């Protein structure tokens, strides 16, 4: 399912743009009279150009704007917020896009991260490589994971602050270098273009700012690969896109439910959780276990040997349940 989602998200523009013919939602552009510098310098912060997406939606999950040929969706939520803070887009233009995002987020929670995000899928391939080599993973403490969540806020808040600042007349001159600041270092900006046989700008030492972003993007890419290779989905605790999605995990109509009376705390779910969460095993009272960190990959449901102890429900209807699986 992740592979199908990956192909759709990355190559969705090829599959759906032509049949649809026109945009369902008009693309968001810099409003007339905004302070946006829409023509970026050729050699400033360059990347592989993104073609038009099939749907001008901003879904939860790292659907990258810089997909070659255009992806299924327009971009991720951090891209949308950053871009429109810089453009100073009035909220009335944004409301429908935000509404679509919120509806998607409430429908599926962080299942977007677990099943649709192309970065997560690429990371899971790296994780699969480690498993094939029978190398043990690196475990991280709950405190470390909590620290990463603070780190995600530390990325998101400055990103949005910078985006807003460079949209003001006083700092508009910095737009050419600081536009979409998180995209400058996001692994998706570098990796997604490769799947369309295009290369993004990997090195730009024109000035101090571009040099900073170049070096930082290399470091982030290295950390991304190492995190998925050794620590399963530890990266997803740091991802600012995942952070925004996590706000909607509690209250989502997609729920992970536990029958606490059927659980004997064998720990199989905790061992299999790629986010390293153990609350599913430890929970003794609450029925709904939608934690902010849970990406709803359902590995816990799959690994639980107790019949009907764990369930994935959608609008209260069970769509996946745990059961004892015979070996052969």
């Amino acid at each position, binding site marked *: 399912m992740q592979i199908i989602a990956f192909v759709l998200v990355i190559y969705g523009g090829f599959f759906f743009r032509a049949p649809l013919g026109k945009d369902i939602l008009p693309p968001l552009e810099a409003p007339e009279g905004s302070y946006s510098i829409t023509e970026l310098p050729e050699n400033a912060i360059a990347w592989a150009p993104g073609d038009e997406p099939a749907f001008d939606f901003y879904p939860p999950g790292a659907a990258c704007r810089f997909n070659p040929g255009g992806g299924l969706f327009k971009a991720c939520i951090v891209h949308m917020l950053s871009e429109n803070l810089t453009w100073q887009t009035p909220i009335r233009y944004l409301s429908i896009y935000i509404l679509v995002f919120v509806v998607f987020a409430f429908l599926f929670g962080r299942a977007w991260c677990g099943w649709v995000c192309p970065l997560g899928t690429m990371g899971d391939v790296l994780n699969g490589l480690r*498993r094939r080599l*029978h*190398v*043990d*993973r690196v475990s991280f*403490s*709950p405190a470390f994971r909590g620290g990463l969540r603070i780190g995600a806020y530390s990325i998101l808040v400055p990103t949005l602050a910078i985006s807003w600042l460079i949209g003001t007349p006083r700092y508009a001159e910095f737009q050419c270098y600081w536009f979409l600041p998180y995209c400058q270092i996001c692994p998706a900006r570098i990796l997604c273009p490769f799947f369309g046989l295009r290369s993004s700008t990997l090195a730009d030492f024109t000035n101090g700012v571009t040099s900073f972003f170049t070096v930082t993007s290399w470091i982030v890419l290295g950390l991304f690969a190492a995190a998925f290779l050794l620590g399963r989905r530890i990266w997803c605790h740091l991802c600012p896109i995942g952070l925004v999605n996590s706000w909607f995990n509690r209250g989502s109509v997609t729920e992970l439910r536990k029958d606490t009376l059927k659980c*004997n*705390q*064998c*720990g*199989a779910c*905790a*061992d*299999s959780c790629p986010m390293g969460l*153990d609350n599913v*095993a*430890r929970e003794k009272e609450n029925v709904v276990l939608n934690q902010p960190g849970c990406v709803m990959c359902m*590995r816990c449901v799959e*690994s639980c*040997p107790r019949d009907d102890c764990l369930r994935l429900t959608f609008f209260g209807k069970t769509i996946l349940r745990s059961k*004892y699986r*015979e*070996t*052969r």
Partner: protein
Amino acid sequence: MSTGEDGDISGRYPLPRIGVPGGAAAEERELQEAALASLGRRPGRLPGLSCFEDMLRSPADALADGPVIGVFCNFFPEELIEAAGGVPVRLCTASVVAESVSEQVLPRDVCPIARASFGAVAGGLGVASKAQAVVVPTACDAKRRLGEMLLDYVPVVTLSIPPRKDHRSELSYWVPELERVARRLSRVTGTAVTRARLREAILHRRTVQDAFHDLENARRDHPHVLAGSDLALVVATSFAANWEAWGQATRRLAEQVRAAGPAHPQPDGFLPLVMTGAPILWPAWKLYHVIEDAGASVVTDTLCSVTQRLCDPVQVDDWSRSGMMRAHRRGVVS
């Protein structure tokens, strides 16, 4: 006085050799036959139970080839012994003969299971006489003392059980402890516990657990067809059994339960009970007899000697060596 090695517990004072009365083995057989005969008199017993009774009569004959390693307590993952090339045999017993033998050394106020288990090993009774070493998890104070006292009679490998199962730091202790025990077992058997051997042992054990789950599922639908005493008998045979033969016999029994279920409707006044508490070990089936003679039946339990023995599989997420070791935490560390 013997001392443990490499992290194992040490003995506290020297213990004398234990003499076993000449008729002990015969008395043991006699008591066992009486217990089996008592079960056999119950009406409507399934024919598939007879092969389990045969396994109980001669457990040593059914064992696979290899050095026999005795195990006390359900907390120890027997897969480790198989991975080390050994044959795991659970030695927990409630034999009154073994218990009387142990009284040459132990006072009467010691836990009866620990006392009987000690007597069986120290006196070399039954299948315990074949054990080249025993593994004693420190699950309770009696087990810890048992390990200390058995040191003078047989090599003892101690497995330290984390005191709190729900404390996050315990897992970082549990895996190295299992690795240490694996090294100790390798020294006893002469076969190293490799990743491949451990994987094979886990999958092998899973086939046995699959068979048990099959029986449990059949019994869930028809709880009155197989009495609680008979289920306990089936599990008791798994203490010292050839796992392939045991698994096949259990599958056959599950089929018989399914086949007999519709033909034998649940009797009026059937009283299903859940049994919890201390383990009930063969041949002390007195409590089952009391319950079933009164018209009730134990349909499930939380006993380490019955359902808990095989219900939790080793659920491996990561087939690396540490991943497999970590997966051996069922019920010990959550």
